[in-house]
């Protein structure tokens, strides 16, 4: 059962200087996935990106850039899926109401959630007790 289970639970200060570290951890996890049916290096880049995008949203939106807060996330393998969860204690938001980017306009922001959805197989954001959790899953099979 346990055979491929991996759990990495991370707490870092609410600061952008740690984005590299958490992105790299996701990348290294993906690089070692013998069981992945696709290109591990491409997956590694994408996982790095998804972690970076979701955590910068927590840093800026949920935690209002307060450097004394902490960010909590987990990266793991569960039943042939790579699962990333990012927790926050902010006001929350409705992820299904985030509009797609305006591809004709030239907005500076608004591409984070779009990229996360483009890369992952399932993405949801919900309240769980006193916190919110953004849960992102990617199947390692038949893709």
């Amino acid at each position, binding site marked *: 059962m346990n055979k491929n289970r991996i759990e990495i639970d991370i707490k870092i200060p609410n600061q952008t200087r740690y984005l590299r570290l958490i992105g790299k951890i996701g990348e290294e996890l993906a690089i070692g996935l013998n069981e992945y049916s696709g290109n591990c290096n491409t997956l590694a880049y994408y996982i790095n990106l998804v972690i*970076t995008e979701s955590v910068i949203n927590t840093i800026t939106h949920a935690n209002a850039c307060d450097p004394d807060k902490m960010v909590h996330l987990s990266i793991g393998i569960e039943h042939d899926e790579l699962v990333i969860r990012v927790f926050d204690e902010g006001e929350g938001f409705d992820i299904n109401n985030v509009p797609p980017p305006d*591809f004709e306009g030239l907005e500076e922001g608004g591409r*984070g959630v779009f*990229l996360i959805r483009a890369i992952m197989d399932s993405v949801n954001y919900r309240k769980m007790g006193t916190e919110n959790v953004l849960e992102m899953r990617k199947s390692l099979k038949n893709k």
Partner: protein
Amino acid sequence: MNLDIAEQKKLVVIAIKEERLDAHNATDLKSELLALFEQGKKNILINLQDVRFIDSSGLGALVSGFKNAITNQGSLKLAGLQPQVKSMFELTRLHRVFDIYPTAADVPELP
């Protein structure tokens, strides 16, 4: 952030000497670009050959620079995109916005 800035005739060439162009350093790049426009330098080439990773904030800083260049009747071109970096431009359709050259040497001289 680490940048190499060189002037080639009418073009300012900025080589980004960072592995990542992300939310941690994108604001620095934005300010550097703004400072150049304020000095009247308006034709910019950004060489991304050392950048292995770009996120939406990095893309945002380039879009910001692009808009400022246009407003100043200038230009902002890109060169040296690694394949995975390039795929971020494609996913977000920004490859249709920027002039993208394989290497800095491929960029034509300004008239």
